[in-house]
């Protein structure tokens, strides 16, 4: 069944093609460029992929500086601030530039018993950059309490009590700050998961393509079997089997392991295909005749020529991992509170009542969609650039 094409087989898209060489100068530049230079030239032609690369980098910066960007302690609960709607930041007032928010007062509606919130237009709370807030460890290096934004020191209130850029959840925790922390966990789950499936994929795909014969057939069948199992029920089963008393860290690694159980098949296919096509190349034969050892041939001659393909395949595998974690946590089978991930946050927006009353809880979906789109475009661009001679 080697005529099978996996659903994400390379899709040729000539938009990203190299420019027609205009003058002899460009031609010469292309002629002497190394493979990686050619790739980066081609990649930079792909506008959407470039934009996506920037977005992805920004998101990983958010993940790294999550605590600095958050302004309120993401774990601090307060019943009096339950389900507050997002708040407006007012940048200008009568005196010119003076960013501030208005103080919010909560009360219980005597009829519906819902908490309702009113802003007090006379009580302005000024905002400051690099203000003091809750204490955390900056990049795990030193303790600090500086945050990108916060309230001025002389305001007499804390950030937790006054700033609600995206509203609060049922327990009165600030959604924006929680989202920053969730970004860190959700994005890193993807990375760890890809690293694991990359290891499995390259190992098994490499063995399969290199040795062929019975080993190849066995591994191919293994891949086919893995792919014909409906993944979500399987993940759900494995995830539900995790003991309830496991620590957050243990669950985190178990979840990444579970989602990479499926992810490796795609990478294994790519690697195997590359090995098979390269095995008969002249330069491999030349290296063999020159007396190079097998390991040297693989790592010095073969791997560099398909490394770019692996990078592209990994980029395309990342969003799938992120979706998987989000979906599992959303169902309550993945990461569990107190861990904060996108799926955990979305769990609060699971039914129609919450959505009707507190639509801002659904805002968490926005970064999920943006990141996944960006990774898809980036992966597409990389895949097109991966083969600069094509």
């Amino acid at each position, binding site marked *: 069944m080697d*005529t*099978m*094409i*996996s*659903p*994400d*087989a390379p*899709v*040729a*898209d000539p938009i990203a093609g190299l420019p027609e060489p205009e003058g002899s100068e460009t031609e010469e530049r292309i002629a002497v460029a190394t493979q990686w230079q050619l790739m980066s030239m081609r990649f930079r032609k792909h506008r959407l992929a470039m934009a996506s690369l920037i977005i992805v980098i920004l998101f990983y910066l958010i993940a790294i500086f999550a605590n600095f960007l958050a302004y309120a302690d993401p774990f601090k609960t307060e019943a009096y601030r339950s389900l507050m709607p997002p708040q407006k930041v007012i940048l200008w007032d009568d005196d010119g530039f003076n960013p501030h928010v208005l103080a919010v007062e909560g009360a219980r509606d005597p009829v519906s018993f819902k908490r309702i919130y009113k802003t007090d237009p006379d009580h302005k709370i000024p905002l400051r950059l690099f203000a003091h807030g809750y204490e955390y460890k900056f990049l795990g290096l030193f303790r600090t309490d500086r945050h990108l934004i916060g309230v001025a020191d002389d305001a007499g209130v804390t950030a937790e009590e006054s700033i609600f850029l995206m509203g609060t959840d049922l327990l009165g925790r600030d959604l924006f700050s929680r989202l920053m922390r969730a970004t860190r966990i959700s994005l890193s789950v993807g990375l760890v998961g890809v690293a694991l499936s990359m290891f499995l994929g390259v190992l098994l795909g490499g063995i399969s393509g290199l040795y062929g014969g019975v080993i190849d057939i066995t591994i191919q*069948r293994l891949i*086919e*079997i893995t*792919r*014909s*199992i*409906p*993944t*979500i*029920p*399987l993940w*759900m*089963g*494995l*995830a*539900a*089997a995790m*003991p309830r008393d496991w620590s957050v860290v243990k669950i985190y690694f178990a979840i990444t392991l579970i989602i990479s159980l499926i992810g490796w098949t795609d990478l294994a296919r790519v690697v195997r295909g590359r090995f098979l096509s390269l095995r008969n190349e002249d330069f491999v034969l030349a290296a063999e005749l020159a007396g190079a050892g097998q390991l040297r041939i693989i790592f010095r001659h073969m791997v560099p020529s398909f490394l770019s393909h692996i990078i592209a395949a990994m980029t395309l595998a990342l*969003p799938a991992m992120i*979706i998987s974690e*989000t*979906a599992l946590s*959303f*169902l*309550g*089978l993945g990461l569990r509170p107190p861990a904060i991930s996108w799926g955990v946050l*979305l769990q609060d*927006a*699971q039914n*129609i009542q919450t*959505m*009707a009353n507190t*639509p801002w809880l*659904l805002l968490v*979906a926005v970064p*999920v*969609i943006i990141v*996944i*789109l960006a990774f*898809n*475009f980036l992966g597409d661009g990389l895949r097109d650039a991966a083969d600069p001679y094509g």
Partner: protein
Amino acid sequence: MLSFIARRIMLGALTTWVISIIAFLVILLPPGDFVDAYIAQLSGLGQYVSLETAANLREQYGTDQPFHVQYIKWIRRVAHGDFGQSLEFGVPVADVIGDRLWLTMVVSLGAIALTWGLALPIGIYSAVHQYSFGDYFFTFIGFIGLAIPNFLLALILMYIGFKYFDASIGGLFSPEYQLEPWTWEKIWDLIKHLPMPVIILGMAGTAQLIRIMRANLLDELRKPYVVTARAKGLTETRVILKYPVRAALNPFASTIGYLLPFVVSGSIIISVVMSLPTVGPILLRALVAQDVYLAGTIILMLGTLTVIGTIISDLLLMWIDPRIRLEQR
């Protein structure tokens, strides 16, 4: 030909076997055994279980034996159609699943039908009118479809439906038909409720297939035989539909094997969000409550149905494409 079918069925049987082991692992992995859970549940209801009964139950289920012995016992019972008791509902597993299994299949097959029905014409259109407004439009929609996980799509559509159309999207039946026996009215009611979950479920697959179809057809359209056909004065429709589309269909058809597990997986999760009466919500509940026999049975059944579906699609593919028939001879 026959050897190919035999091989496919062998592989299918192998897959089913692997799935049954995984399903059984799911049953065994949670700490404690089935009898512990059962006793805990009964004593929660104020009933007393004597040590003797517990020992009898352990004997019956063989929970104190090593893994492979337990597995063989379990699979033997399954082969006789005895899937065990659901802990949570206190009735046989088969009764709990009931209609839900085939409703799951209806939704999944509906999604696949939609995927094919949309992806084929749109893919052809996009390839023939490359870089036109329509092409960009469908590419854009396709990317959105690929990028938004379907449970998020369900959430967002439910929110839009609620907010702007004042309609609650969810379920497969109107409240008045929920508990009714099957009648034509109920089936009609089901048909009216199907489009939303089917569209949500089919979106990602459709997007993927459009891209594959477009790319394949673009490759074909550049080949010399298309130029020849045009030079001979064939009408444009015929030039495109007669050969290039047929050639481009092959990889398109081969993806159906992967489409089915993908769609079944998706149906589980959107069923939970949209509260569809399929096996999805029951599976989730069973897993959370560690209702192990129910969960294991559902995983086994879904896996088996998927394997059967994959075999059927492979046979269909062979019937469509003579090249594959020849290769396998």
